[in-house]
């Protein structure tokens, strides 16, 4: 008996002391994740996701800017009902977190050009977010466990912060001692060209400053100075050039072609271009919209929904061969044409009508060239008396009208519309709108209300104006 006990005890001891620590250690770390990633794949995320955020926000607010209209009657997104933009909100914060992580890594590795791009992209995301939602979390954001319930910062402060970030980005991009090179395919906006990023930084600066037109902080000189360092030609434009499948607006068009109805153009944009509103046919229209079965271009009124079956080409859609929506179509982010219109507006407000007029015409031409309008058609349009009004007759309305067309599907347009108080000719409220006036902001998404409720500012309604829109 004693022998058996001894054997048992020895057995247990022998078994005990095998490599147990290791047996467990091996399995602690997640083998499906990489701890320290290479920086260029992070840059790919930063550039790609930021561009996609522009698309995502653009898709949502295109119904408010009335580029698009729902094929369904009374769709919430059309008629100013509250829509839950949780997914968009998540995408923005996830993107910014990834940028913030890349920036940290870039600083550690003296990858100053990556850092510069990161700062510019951060400014870009932040700016898009505040122009849609107003106050948002930022100063206490991206801290993980250290700050789980970030406060919402004042939009005024954040607007200034977005400009600061641009300055920091410019400084970093200008450094010559960067220790890492931007990998060409990983930069899906500028293909690794640092000079191009610098121009984009200034272009965004001009855009951000221009947003302040209704405020005391508006300064035409600063805008014009920024523009000097921004784009000089269409080729400088920032655009998303690689995708994870179909190019985003192409996907919309393909869906629609497959009768998953989407990408229907609003009466407002179609009428602005087909001669109904302004008496002149815009040659860009055939390049961005589909022809109806009636042989013309017709929009769908926001809130009204379709007229017929929705499958008979009774209205115009984003076509699968359109400029924005063809297969592999680049997604324009910030363009030379936009710069020209910013210049036109700044010069106009500065009283320099000649500069304003020339910039206005240059903006139209640049956009037409970009979209691929025939030279003759372009000239016909520009030379039309309703367009070429002469420098003395240039008005903000004309500048805004042309910018509205040139900035099609870009969320920045909705900023312009609010700055211009929707004073476009014949611009109508959606049918059965839930508000008595035009929409001025988005509601905070449920993901933030349910998780960070106490910090979410109360809003009085979707007609509440943001600080730069007062």
């Amino acid at each position, binding site marked *: *008996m004693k022998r*058996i006990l001894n054997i*048992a005890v020895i057995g*247990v001891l*022998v078994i*005990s*002391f*095998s*490599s*147990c*620590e290791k*047996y*467990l250690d*091996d*399995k*602690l*770390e*997640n*083998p*499906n*994740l*990489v701890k320290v*990633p*290479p920086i260029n*794949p*992070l840059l*790919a995320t930063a550039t790609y*996701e930021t561009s996609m955020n522009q698309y995502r926000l653009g898709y949502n607010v295109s119904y408010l800017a009335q580029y698009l209209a729902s094929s369904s*009657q*009374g769709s*919430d997104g059309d008629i100013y*009902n509250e829509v839950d933009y949780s997914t968009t909100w998540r995408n923005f914060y996830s993107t910014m977190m*990834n940028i913030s992580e890349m920036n940290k890594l870039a600083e550690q590795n003296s990858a100053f050009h990556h850092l510069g791009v990161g700062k510019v992209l951060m400014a870009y995301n932040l700016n898009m977010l505040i122009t849609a939602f107003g106050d948002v*979390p930022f100063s206490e954001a991206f*801290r*993980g*466990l250290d700050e*789980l*319930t970030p406060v919402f910062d004042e939009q005024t402060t954040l607007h200034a912060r977005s400009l600061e970030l641009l300055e920091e980005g410019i400084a970093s991009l200008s450094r010559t001692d960067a220790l890492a090179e931007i990998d060409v*395919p*990983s930069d*899906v906006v500028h293909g690794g060209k640092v000079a191009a990023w610098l121009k984009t930084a200034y272009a965004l600066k001009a855009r951000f400053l221009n947003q302040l037109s209704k405020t005391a902080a508006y300064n035409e000189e600063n805008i014009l100075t920024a523009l000097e360092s921004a784009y000089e030609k269409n080729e400088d434009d920032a655009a998303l050039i*690689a995708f*994870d*499948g179909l190019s985003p607006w192409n996907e919309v068009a393909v869906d629609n072609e*497959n*009768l*998953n109805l989407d990408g229907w153009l609003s009466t407002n944009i179609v009428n602005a271009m087909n001669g109904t509103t302004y008496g002149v046919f815009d040659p860009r229209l055939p390049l961005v919209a589909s022809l109806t079965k009636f042989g013309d271009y017709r929009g769908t009124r926001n809130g009204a*929904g*379709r007229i*017929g*079956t929705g*499958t*008979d080409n009774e209205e115009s859609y984003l076509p699968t061969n359109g400029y924005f929506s063809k297969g592999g179509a680049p997604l324009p982010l910030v363009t030379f044409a936009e710069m020209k219109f910013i210049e036109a507006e700044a010069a106009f407000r500065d009283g320099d009508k000649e500069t304003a007029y020339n910039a206005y015409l240059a903006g139209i031409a640049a956009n037409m060239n970009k979209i691929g309008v025939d030279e003759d058609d372009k000239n016909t349009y520009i030379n039309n008396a309703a367009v070429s009004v002469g420098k003395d007759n240039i008005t903000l309305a004309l500048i805004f009208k042309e910018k509205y067309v040139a900035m099609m599907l870009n969320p920045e347009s909705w900023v312009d519309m609010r700055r211009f108080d929707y004073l476009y000719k014949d611009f109508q409220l959606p049918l059965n709108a839930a508000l008595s006036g035009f929409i001025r902001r988005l509601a905070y998404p*449920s993901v*933030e*209300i*349910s*998780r960070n409720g106490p910090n979410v500012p*109360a809003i009085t309604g979707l007609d509440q104006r943001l600080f730069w829109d007062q």
Partner: protein
Amino acid sequence: MSFYSKMRGILLPRHFEFCFLHPRRPVVKMKTLMMSVTMLVLLLTVNGLLIAGPSHGQDLSKIKITLDLKNVSLKTALHKIESATKLAFSYKSGDVAAYRHINYSVTETAVDKVLDDLLINTGLRYELLNTNIIIKKRIDPELSSDQVAAIPDGGIKGRILDAEGGPLPGASIQVLGTQTGAIADGQGGFSISGLNAGDYKVQVTAIGFTTAIRDVTVKDGETADLTIQLTPDNTSLTEVTVTALGIKKEKRSLGYSAQEVTGEALSSSKQVNVVNALQGQAAGLQINAGGGAPGQGAKIILRGINSLDGARDFQPLFVIDGVPIDNTTDVTDGSSLNGMGNRASDINPDDIESINILKGGAATALYGLRASTGAIIITTKSGKSGKLRADYTSTYSVDNINKYPETQSRFTQGWYGEYDPNSFWPVTGPTIEDAKAIDPTHPDKIFNNFKHGYKTGNSFRNTLTLSGGTEKAILNAAFSQFNQDGIMPFTDYKNYSAKVGGDLKFSDKFRMGMSVNYIKSGGRRGNADRYNENLTYFSPRWDIWDYIKPDGTQNTIVGSGNENPIYILYGKKYVDDVDRIISNANFTYSPVTWLDISYRFGVDLYNDNRKQTTPGKLGLVDEIYPTSDFGFGGVRTYSINNRIMNSTLVLNFKNDIGEHLSSSFKIGHDLFESRRHTVYTQGDTLVEPTFYNLNNVKRTTAVTTQRDYRIIGLFGDWTLGWDNYLYLTITGRNDWTSTLSKANRSFFYPSASLSWVFSENIGLPAWWSYGKARFSVAKIGKDAPVYATSEGFKPQLPLTNGAIPFILANTKGDANLRPEFTTSYEGGLELKFLQNRLGLDFTYYNNTSKDLIVPVSVPVASGYESIYLNAGSIRNKGVEISVSGTPVQTKDFSWDLRVNYTANRNKVLSIYPDLTEMTMATHYGYLSSTVTQKNIPGQPVGALYGRTYKRYFDGDTEDPAVLDKSRPIVIGSNGFPVLNPASKQQYIANSQPKWIGSLSSTLRYKDLSLYFLLDAQQGLYRYNQFANFLASFLMQKGAENRNDMVVFDGVLEDGTKNTKEVWLGQGTGPDGVNYGNGYYRNYYRGDSETFIENASWIRLRTLSLGYRLPASLMKRSGFLQGANISVTGNNLWLSTKYSTFDPESSSFSSGSVVDGFSGFTYPATRSIIFSLNLNF
């Protein structure tokens, strides 16, 4: 440590090493533990000579007693008689000490006879002297000195049979009054020799049977024949039950509640999934079927939710024949809405002998952290020796949808009351009459698609079990086949299973057994959520069953933009195919009587290969291709390779310390290893539209994941028994887990439980047959989910230019996670009355879980979607009551009743300090009526929050976080109720039931039996997304009033009563006012409180009529031993206020703890089941 290093790596294959970690902590604790136990033992052993008390002269033949003695000493037996009769005995301890291990049982028998029985052949006699009974040594005249040397040559041989006449191996045969006895062999046979001629009483005992005593006369040189048939013991006094780690314990010794469900009870409901079969069978058990899909999973909540993590698997540990098995419901391939099965559903319910439900901490302590939410111990049917026996069961069922919402039937397709047969809007047009005036082809009636879209399903199961063998080797086998067609079009499920097992007895000291079970299961699953959603969009003016054109393309409502729901089901094919092997091998070695060494090795291995295919666009004229459901045609495969290995070694030291005290001390080692590898391949855009091959796609992407999990455990269990009425069990376990950091990975937790069978030592009235009190306290630790301590980046799909973005995993790990602990207190009573005809089992428990590890859904601005944190504590307390009774029991007729009642109260005590609330899950609702299940301190886990109507408080202060329904609704100046802003989320109701109850009853008359089970869950609420969608499209019955003018009940902002009359319809009303999109779309659908519905239910879960064919018929057949036929109805009756499908179905998969949502689920079924059972 140097010694460890030296010994490292010398043993066993590298991938599965036996590991006992450095046992520093537990040893310290165990030492203290042992000291306290030793003290207790010393105290208990201090007992003196029994002093006889005074008594009056008695006629012993007139005092009747009932005794049930199991393995006790003569001294104890006398003591029992004393306490039962107030008689007093006097004797010398030395005289009686030699007589131990007495098994004896009598009912209402005279004491003189009992004493005769007990003292026969002991050499002792008794005499009544004054008031005492004196026990003395007998001076036996027969035992003269010359006869002593003679060798007695008489004997007894025979067989012990069970109730059905089969052999009963292992029964213990004792010749009373002698030291002679035997154990029945594999054929139930026994033989006893060496008896003197004379009259003997032979006592036969076997676990689960009543003790039998027979008179036998033995003659010199002859062997008497004796065949005894035992009757099953239903009194439970001697019930043995399977506890943690397969340890069999007498039920009376358990200091915690343990409920056993027999195979018979399980099979009475003829459920497909073993989890569903448990419904209503035990207290403390909340089971919710995921829905009625073939092979769909079901979830179990034991004693309330003790997790704050909506995604973590909180299902109890499933153990089959001692082997923990995988019970995952894997939906990581996006199949959460496809009604996937929980893996335990692979098990054939017809092959189950019994299920033990271990609920509390003390019950599961030995299993350690994996059983922190309880354990379901399944024992499958095992073999019996003897001739080959076969059991064949065949079941056929017909299934139909048991409940569907009533839809409006007055209005048809269109918008703003205008008819449009191409409209997206299914029923917001004019009345059918008006539409027919415009469109003569319009049918007279529109469909209720939630009925019309479901068909009759059926299932067919055949099970054959075989067993037989010799005393040395027993074999058993089970084969089954199951095929089911679901009620939702194009859904089915199959399960084939083959099991072979055997037990070998090499000697009395060494036994071993093993079993292998191969299972093939799976089928075509459909997304019920999407189907019902599509059914909501599709105008019921058209027939969905007209879903396909002759060329194979979709036939749908042209222009509506909506898909034909059935065509989507038809085209989108999702099939899972599981190959699984569950196997175990075990041995028990008993080198000495006081030690058993048992070892068990189990493996659960499966491959789950899933494939989803959707056809591409055929490219035909007028083709309406459902891109959003089909993509561009594709092939997706998801393969899971899962392996669980488990090794358990237990040393059991059992001995008696002194006369009264028995001890059983177990120490063991447990090793668990799980490895899960998955590959998810996605092929998009088919080139040839119906060739489902990964080489036929334009783009293929693949994601691989690997999850490894290991636990090492060391445990001890010490049970001390005092005279078979007082038991103390102390357990301790230390776990080392791979999911926590080195500093936190080792943790110890103890438990103690006490059982006092007070009916054994307190004089109870005769009608009170049995009484037991129990108390336990336990602590259970739990580790973190796999990889919850790590974080990092992961590659995304490549972009079109070849760049591969890396993104930060949006769930952040925390390296500092600590184990979570649950402390539970449990007390209970088990009482039996009137010869056990009435039984009551009462349990109260109070469990507090602390430091719960939760991937807290954090504000996304923190940079993460969620972060793993030790983030809170929860308390569950409740009562469980079981009452069982046999109101009638005659030869031909019997009536059994059982009632189970459970009430659990759950409360979130705290959450992560920085947060005011933690979101568990949300479910979308139109117009910001999205409902969120949140954890907020002070409220239950199932708290549902959403958007509400504004209430009038008349100057009182409103608690903004809680809806006060007693207050009047504020009506706006436009005459409609005012919706609170979406950001003002209010607590509306709780998804946890107030109580759960069941009533089951069996009535037997001769060979007929009738069984029913009424089952109820009351006081629970669910968010009904389905109702919200119906409301958005004005499809519910209530929306037939849309052309009415009404005055909403409520008050204006100033508190005065609302009197404004408004129209409910769309557009301009009869009063000339433009009402826009109308009341239902503008207000009604935006109020979450409307859609958080009372989901309480009572149902007739099972009604079954069975008939056992008479024995005479069996005999005539020559080969049949028995035959039963039965017809069973499931869900024949359901009473609930819930407006859509059966609220028992859940919108979240069975792997999720989230239970607040029941919307577009796979509807439950009402089944009629025919069954035939034959024994050969």
